[in-house]
Structure formats: structure tokens, C-alpha cells
């Protein structure tokens, strides 16, 4: 098919065959994990997959405008999707890891709130610079009215641009994205940490206190790596830029869920194999 003949919306089309293949791969990896580590490993892998899916889904909410946003040519935050999501999610992971001793629920929620706080501060500062530094009001290029506030958008777009800044719906999307990303990253970390805490003492013939620094470091490294895997996958799904939950590209999230689940399962399986084999 030539570029001219290609459908303009082809990037957003769902491919049922690819989705089915993804689900089969997921089941195969889960089966392999059950074979090598039927209790601890499988439980950890399921947690890792849920965490990865949260990150993949959450990244869709983050309003990212890329290079055009840096010139006030398009709405969103002027940086990369994966980078901003990683910045917010890892800030959440930092808080979640600190709260790990207080139990899984507290740690995951703390991680989520940490990511949400990072995004709330960043999004507010973005609008602060646009309004007070550059004299430009926020305007969406994808909707006529803000879905939350009802504010009209079209007449606030300057000539020759697709909009600029962060309308309120994009701000809310950013905070939701940060919360989901921070919670997902923390969940992956906690699952791996509990697995390594249980297996490292036997593997290394040492006490739990002795293996803790190694377990924390390895679990943390894997959590950061899996965060980046899921954030980059989602960046491909939304082809670089997105305004937030009101953007038509947001509807592509189902295939990112499948892709994130498969990628997280595969990466998580490798992380489990280092103690299960």
C-alpha cells in the first residue's frame, strides 16, 4: 500500500489478530513461570503484570506536546512522553519504596500520590511559564470545549497554531497519569522485593539482614527498567504526542494494555528466573 492509499487513521486501528497473539504470549509466559516457580514466582509475576498495565494505561493520560509544545505550537508539556511519565512514576517509586515497611497498600498509594504530586507541580509550573512568562493562555486543539470546565477553546488558540499550554482537562489527566504510574512502579518494586527477600538468603547462604541491600538494589533496578519499557511502549502507541484523556489517541489504550502486559510478563519472568533457576 502506498502512503497516499493508507488510511489516515490507520495508526489508531485495533488489530484483533495481534491482540490475540499478545494474549496467547501472555498465557505462555504465565505458564512458564508457573512451571519454574508455581507459588512465589507466579504471584510476583501477576503483580508485575498489573503494575506494568497501570504504567502503560497511566502514560496515556499524561499530556505531552513534544517539540511543537516548546514553540507554543501545540498543547501539552514540552518533553517526551516516556521521559515525563518516567520522571513522575519514578518520583512516585521513590516515595513508595520509602513506605515499603508500612505494608503494600500504604506503599502503593504513597507511590501513586508521589507521582501525582510531581505531575501536579510540573503541570502548574508549565501553565505558570506560559501565562506569566510568555503571555499565552491555555487552549486545546482537539476539543471545542474543555470536558471538565466547559471553557471554550477555539478562540483562545493563537493564529497558525494547534493550541498551547495545559487546559484544565490536561492538568487533571497529567495528575491521573502520575498517580497510576507511581502506583504501578511501586507495585512492581514491592513484588520483586518480596520475592528476593524470600529467595536471596538461601541463594547466597546469608541472613535476611545481609541480603537486604542487594535485594533492594536489584528490585529497584528492575522496577526502573520495567517502568521505562512500559512508558516507551506507550509512547509508540500514541505516536509521540497526546493532549490527555480527551485526545482521540487516548482510545488506543486497549492495545497498549495488551502490549504492556506481555512486555511486563517477559521482563518480570527474566527477573524471576535469576532466583528461580
Amino acid at each position, binding site marked *: 500500500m502506498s502512503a497516499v492509499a493508507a488510511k489516515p487513521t490507520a495508526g489508531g486501528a485495533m488489530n484483533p489478530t495481534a491482540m490475540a497473539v499478545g494474549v496467547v504470549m501472555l498465557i505462555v509466559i504465565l505458564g512458564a513461570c508457573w512451571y519454574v516457580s508455581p507459588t512465589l514466582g507466579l504471584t510476583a509475576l501477576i503483580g508485575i503484570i498489573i503494575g506494568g498495565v497501570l504504567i502503560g494505561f497511566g502514560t496515556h493520560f499524561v499530556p505531552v506536546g513534544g517539540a511543537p509544545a516548546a514553540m507554543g505550537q501545540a498543547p501539552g508539556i514540552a518533553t517526551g512522553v516516556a521521559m515525563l511519565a518516567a520522571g513522575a512514576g519514578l*518520583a512516585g517509586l521513590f516515595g513508595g519504596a520509602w513506605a515499603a515497611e508500612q505494608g503494600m497498600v500504604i506503599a502503593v498509594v504513597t507511590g501513586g500520590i508521589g507521582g501525582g504530586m510531581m505531575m501536579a507541580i510540573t503541570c502548574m509550573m508549565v501553565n505558570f511559564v506560559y501565562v506569566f512568562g510568555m503571555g499565552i493562555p491555555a487552549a486545546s486543539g482537539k476539543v471545542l470545549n474543555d470536558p471538565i470546565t466547559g471553557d471554550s477553546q477555539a478562540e*483562545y488558540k493563537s493564529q497558525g497554531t494547534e493550541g498551547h499550554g495545559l487546559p484544565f482537562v490536561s492538568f487533571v489527566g497529567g495528575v491521573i497519569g502520575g498517580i497510576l504510574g507511581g502506583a504501578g512502579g511501586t507495585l512492581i518494586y514491592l513484588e520483586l522485593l518480596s520475592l528476593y527477600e524470600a529467595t536471596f538468603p538461601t541463594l547466597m547462604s546469608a541472613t535476611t539482614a545481609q541480603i537486604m541491600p542487594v535485594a533492594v538494589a536489584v528490585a529497584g533496578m528492575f522496577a526502573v527498567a520495567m517502568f521505562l519499557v512500559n512508558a516507551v511502549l506507550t509512547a509508540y502507541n500514541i505516536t509521540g504526542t497526546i493532549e490527555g484523556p480527551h485526545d482521540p489517541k487516548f482510545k488506543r489504550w486497549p492495545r497498549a494494555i495488551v502490549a504492556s502486559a506481555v512486555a511486563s510478563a517477559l521482563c518480570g519472568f527474566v527477573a524471576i528466573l535469576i532466583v528461580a533457576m
Partner: protein
Amino acid sequence: MEQIVFGIGITALTGALATVAGSAEDTESNIGSQGDPNSQVQLAPQMGFLHRIFNKAVAGEPPAYGLWCALGAGLAWAFMAMQINAILAIVLGCVLAVFVQGVYATTAYLGRTASLAKFGQPVYVDIIKSMTTVTMAHAFIAIFCTVALCQLINGALGHPFPLPLLALIWGIALGAAGSATGNPYYGKERQYQNQKFGAGVPISASGNIVRYAEAGERNSIDNGFFTHKIGGSASGLCFGLIVFLELWRTILFERIYAGWGAIAVGVLIILIFTVIDRYIEVWARKNYGPYTAVKEAEA
């Protein structure tokens, strides 16, 4: 009680370090044209606008600063393991990390500019000589402050992550905050200073960046000087608030209701920033007004 007071003191110090780091990071990236506005520096010669702007997009700012901060922290950690004083170890680690940044900056400028040879863009040796050291100096401040705050978080506040991992996380967050806040100011307000104030750059003007200064051709040190006043300060404020408030809510409130206290305060902080953001948005709409008349049919 003493522990909480000590924690608040450390929190204040980390917040101050983060503010300086954010400001230096944004200025460094603007002098080097590392953020998203680099697309215009790369595009300009292709549109016939030759320039003397430094062009060193090594990578996006978050992964670049993740690498440099983790490198500085890893080396500092190794020096500390060799029983070298912590402050000296951090300085030495950051100096070595900055040399890596300088190598990346030089090769990035040469590689990216050489790729524009077919459009007649020259490689200026004097730019490498004068700009690279300035970006390295700013990068040192940003990396040193980030590694130092990570050392405080790890050593004084007792975060479980090892120093290099903390520096990787906060390095990525530093790049994310700095590029998100500082990029628009450099991209729109400085590179397109010849466009109307109070409006985005029309897409048709892409590549036509300002290339001349009051005397002679504009260089990247001028850009750093200009953007530091608002873009750099805002980036510093952004990263400083992120680090300070995250630590502050944890240190003061994590013991309340078994951890739920810190969560409740976090939610409250998010709500406060939501209200401030909405106020800024409405203020701009009221004071600046629409660019065109409101269309009733669309509304």
C-alpha cells in the same frame, strides 16, 4: 522530636539544592540547545537560516541527566568506599561525570552540525571552545546538587535505595521537570523573539529562529543569560518544590495513622496545586482575552 527537627532541616537543605539543580539544568540545556527547541536549531539551516547556536542534543534531558547523575553518584559511592571524605568524593565523582558530559557535548555538536554540511552550515571551532566549558560548568552545578541531595536522602534520612539508584531516579525527574518547565520559554520566547509576544509561533515560521544579536551574531551564552531569568528560575522552583514537598510530607506525616497521614497531606497538596493551576488558567483567559471573537455556534 529531635529526629523530626533534624529531618526538617535536611528537607530544607535538599529543597534548596534541588532548586539550584533545576535552575542550572535548564540553563545548561538552553545553552546547549538540548531540549525540544533543539528541533528548530537543527531545522534552521535546512530552511536556509545558518546560525552560530550550539547544538548538542545528546539525548532527551531526563535520560541524559539520569546518566550523568547516576555516573557521578556511582563514582562518589566508590570513592566513599575507599574511605574518602563524602564531600570530596561527591565533588570528584561529579567532576568525572562532567567530563563525560563534555565528551558527549563535543561529539554531539560535531556530529549534528556535520550532518547539516549539505545545507552549508559550518562547524565553528570557536563555538566548541567557548560554549562547551560553559555547559560543563552548569552541568557540574546541576549534577553536584542532585548527587548531594541524594546523599542526604540516603545517608541522613535513611532511604533504602543505594546512592546511584537514587541519583538515577532524581536525575530523570530533574530532566523531566527542567525540560517541561524551561523548554517553552527557550523555544518560544528566545528562539522566536521576533514573533509576536503573547501568542504561539505559527507553524509556518518554523526554522526561522533569531540569529542576530545587538552586535554581531547571537550565541548560546546569550540564550542562557536570557532564559535563566524566567525559564531557569521556574525550572528551579519546579524541581525544588517536587523534592521539598515529597520529603516534607514523608518526614512530618508518615508516622500519623500508620502512613495515611502522609497520603492525606499528599492529596491535599495535589488539590492546592489544582486550585492554583485553575486560577492561573482563568486569570489568563480574563486578562488576555480571546484571539478571535467567540463563535456562538461552536460554544
